[in-house]
C-alpha cells in the first residue's frame, strides 16, 4: 500500500514541470555558475602575471633578484618610466646610474620603484618588488659583514617564514561554505513544490477528502507523502552534488586540485550523498508540517519559506569558524551539522564520530517533527478546509 501511494506521488510530482525544473535544472545552473566563478577566482590568484619595466642596461646579476618571483615578467626598455606610462608595464624599477659599482664598493645605491597606487595590480607588483629588493638588501648586508669579519645573523635576529595551514587554503574554505549553502537551498527549493502540493494542494483540490475516505491508515498516507518529499529532496541533492563533482573533474583545473581527496574520494562522495539524504529527510519533515498547516498551496509556501530561512540561520555563523574549531554543538544542531559535516568533507576530513552525532540528532528531530505532523494529520481541522 505504502509503495503504491509512494509510486503514484512520485509519478505525479515528476510530471509537474515546476518540480522537474527545480530538482534538476536549478542545481545544474547554480552549481555550474559556482564552479566557474571559483575556477576563475582561483586561477586569477595563482597565474596572474605582473610586468615590471626595467632598464635595458640592467645586468644579469640584478635580474637574478627576481628569479624567485615567477609571476613577475621583466619588460626591458630604454626608458622604464616611459614604458610604464605607455601601459607596457604595471610598475617600473629605476636604478641609480652607477648602481652596480656602488653596491660592489660598499656605497649607498639609489633605487626607485614607480607605481600607481590606484591600480591594485600595480600595488601588488610594487610590494612584490619591495620584498625582492629587501631580500637582495639582506644578502648585500650579509656579504659586507662577512667581508668585515662579523656574523651576519647579528642583523638578522628573525628568520620569518609564512605558510598557510597545510590544507586550509582560502579557496577550499569558501567552497566549504558555499557547497552546503547551495545544497541546502537546492534541496529546500527543489522539494517545496512537492511538499506544498502533497498536503495543502490536496486540501485545496479536495482530493484529500477522496483519499481520507479510502480504507488506508492516515499514518500510511502521511508516511508515503513524507517519503515522497524526502525522495524529491534527495534527488535534488544528488543532482546538485553530481553536477559539482562532474564539473570539477571535467571542466576545471585549479578546483580539481583544491578538492582532491586521493584514495578517499569515494568515501567522501558517499558521505556527502548520505549527508544530503539526511538533510532531505529533515527538510521533508519541516516542509510537511508547513504544508499541513496551510490551507492552500500558496499558504503552505508562505509558511515554508521563513521556516527554511530560519533553519538556515545558525549555519551562517559557521563561515567564520575554522575547521579545527568545530565542536559538539556544531554537529548536534540540525542543518548546522550539514554545514559542519560538508565543511569537513570538503577539507578531506572523515570523522565518523561527528557523522554519528549528526545522524542521531537529525533522526531525533525528524521523529519529533513526524509525531507532530501525525498528530495534526489525525485532526479533522488540519486535513479539511
Amino acid at each position: 500500500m505504502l509503495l503504491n501511494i509512494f509510486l503514484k506521488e512520485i509519478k505525479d510530482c515528476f510530471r509537474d514541470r515546476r518540480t522537474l525544473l527545480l530538482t534538476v535544472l536549478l542545481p545544474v545552473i547554480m552549481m555550474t555558475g559556482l564552479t566557474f566563478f571559483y575556477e576563475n577566482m582561483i586561477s586569477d590568484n595563482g597565474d596572474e602575471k605582473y610586468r615590471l619595466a626595467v632598464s635595458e642596461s640592467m645586468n644579469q646579476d640584478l635580474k637574478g633578484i627576481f628569479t624567485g618571483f615567477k609571476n613577475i615578467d621583466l619588460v626591458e626598455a630604454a626608458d622604464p618610466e616611459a614604458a610604464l606610462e605607455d601601459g607596457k608595464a604595471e610598475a617600473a624599477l629605476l636604478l641609480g646610474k652607477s648602481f652596480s659599482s656602488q653596491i660592489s664598493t660598499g656605497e649607498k645605491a639609489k633605487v626607485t620603484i614607480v607605481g600607481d597606487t590606484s591600480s591594485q595590480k600595480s600595488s601588488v607588483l610594487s610590494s612584490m618588488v619591495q620584498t625582492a629588493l629587501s631580500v637582495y638588501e639582506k644578502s648585500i648586508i650579509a656579504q659586507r659583514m662577512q667581508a668585515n669579519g662579523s656574523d651576519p645573523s647579528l642583523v638578522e635576529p628573525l628568520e620569518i617564514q609564512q605558510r598557510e595551514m597545510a590544507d586550509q587554503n582560502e579557496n577550499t574554505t569558501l567552497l566549504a561554505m558555499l557547497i552546503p549553502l547551495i545544497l541546502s537551498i537546492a534541496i529546500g527549493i527543489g522539494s517545496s513544490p512537492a511538499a506544498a502540493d502533497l498536503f495543502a494542494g490536496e486540501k485545496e483540490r479536495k482530493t484529500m477528502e477522496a483519499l481520507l475516505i479510502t480504507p488506508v491508515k492516515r499514518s500510511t498516507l502521511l508516511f508515503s507523502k513524507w517519503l515522497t518529499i524526502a525522495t524529491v529532496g534527495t534527488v535534488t541533492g544528488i543532482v546538485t552534488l553530481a553536477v559539482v563533482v562532474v564539473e570539477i573533474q571535467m571542466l576545471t583545473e585549479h578546483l580539481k586540485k583544491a578538492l582532491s581527496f586521493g584514495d578517499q574520494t569515494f568515501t567522501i562522495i558517499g558521505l556527502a550523498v548520505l549527508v544530503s539524504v539526511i538533510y532531505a529527510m529533515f527538510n521533508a519533515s519541516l516542509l510537511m508540517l508547513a504544508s499541513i498547516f496551510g490551507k492552500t498551496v500558496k499558504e503552505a509556501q508562505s509558511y515554508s519559506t521563513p521556516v527554511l530561512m530560519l533553519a538556515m540561520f545558525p549555519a551562517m555563523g559557521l563561515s567564520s569558524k575554522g575547521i579545527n574549531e568545530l565542536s559538539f554543538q556544531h554537529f548536534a544542531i540540525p542543518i548546522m551539522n550539514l554545514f559542519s559535516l560538508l565543511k569537513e568533507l570538503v577539507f578531506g576530513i572523515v570523522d565518523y564520530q561527528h557523522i554519528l552525532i549528526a545522524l542521531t540528532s537529525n533522526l531525533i528531530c525528524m521523529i519529533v517533527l513526524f509525531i507532530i505532523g501525525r498528530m495534526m494529520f489525525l485532526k479533522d481541522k488540519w486535513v479539511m478546509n
Partner: protein
Amino acid sequence: MIEIHEVTKKFQDKKKFVTALKHVTFTVKEGQVVGLLGENGAGKTTLLRTIATLLTPTEGMVTVAGFDTMKNSNEVKKRIGVLFGGETGLYDRLTARENLEYFASLYGLSKHETKVRIDDLSRMFGMRDYLNRRVGGFSKGMRQKVAIARTLIHNPEIILFDEPTTGLDITSSNVFRQLVHQLKREGKTIIFSSHIMEEVSMLCDSVAMMHKGELVYQGNLESLYKTEGSRDLNYIFMSKLVRGNEHYAS
C-alpha cells in the same frame, strides 16, 4: 442501512463554537434514494462528512451497515463511496485511467479486478476515448464522469453525493441523473444533497430537510406531497423553512 442517532457536531472556529448539527436522528434503509435539502450552511456537507467517517460527531453516533463510523471506520469506508462536489478529487497530472487505478489500489482491489471494473465503468460512462489522457485537460463533464467512476470504483453499496450537479451543464447533469436511476436499479443506497428541487423530486424516494443544523423533515416524498397538499417541492421546502424559523423564534 444508515442509522444516524442523536448526532451533534460542533466546530470551534476562532474561539467561537459553531453547531453545525443538532441532535440529528434518521435512518436510511437499503436501496433508498434520499435527497438532502437545506439552505447554505444548513449542515448538509457536515452530515455527509460525518457519515463518511471524515468527521467525528461531538455527540451521538452513526452506523453504516451495522458498523460504527468511528470505531469501525475501515469497514464503513470499504462499503461507502463519496463524491464531494461535482467533479473534484482528481489528480490533474495523472490520466483518467491512472486516477482510477490509484484509487482502486487504495481500496485494495487486485490488478485484475481493477481492469475489469475500469472497463465496465468506462463503457458505462462512455469515457473510453479519453481514458489514457491526462485529466488536467478535461472538460467539466469529462471530469465529472471520471470522478463518479472513481467514487464507484470499489462497487460500494452506499453512495453519498454532495451537490453532484452544481456548476454542470444540462448534458453533464443528465449523465448524473441517469446514473442514479441505474444505481437505484442495482439496489444501492444513495444520499445526495442538492439545491435543485426538480432533480430531487425526479430521483428520490424520500427527502431529508435541514435547517440551521436541525433535521426539520424526513420522510417519503409521496406522503410529503399528500400531507402538504402540493406536488411543488420548491413551495413545500420554502413553507417548511418558514415554519422552521417560527420554531426558532418561539
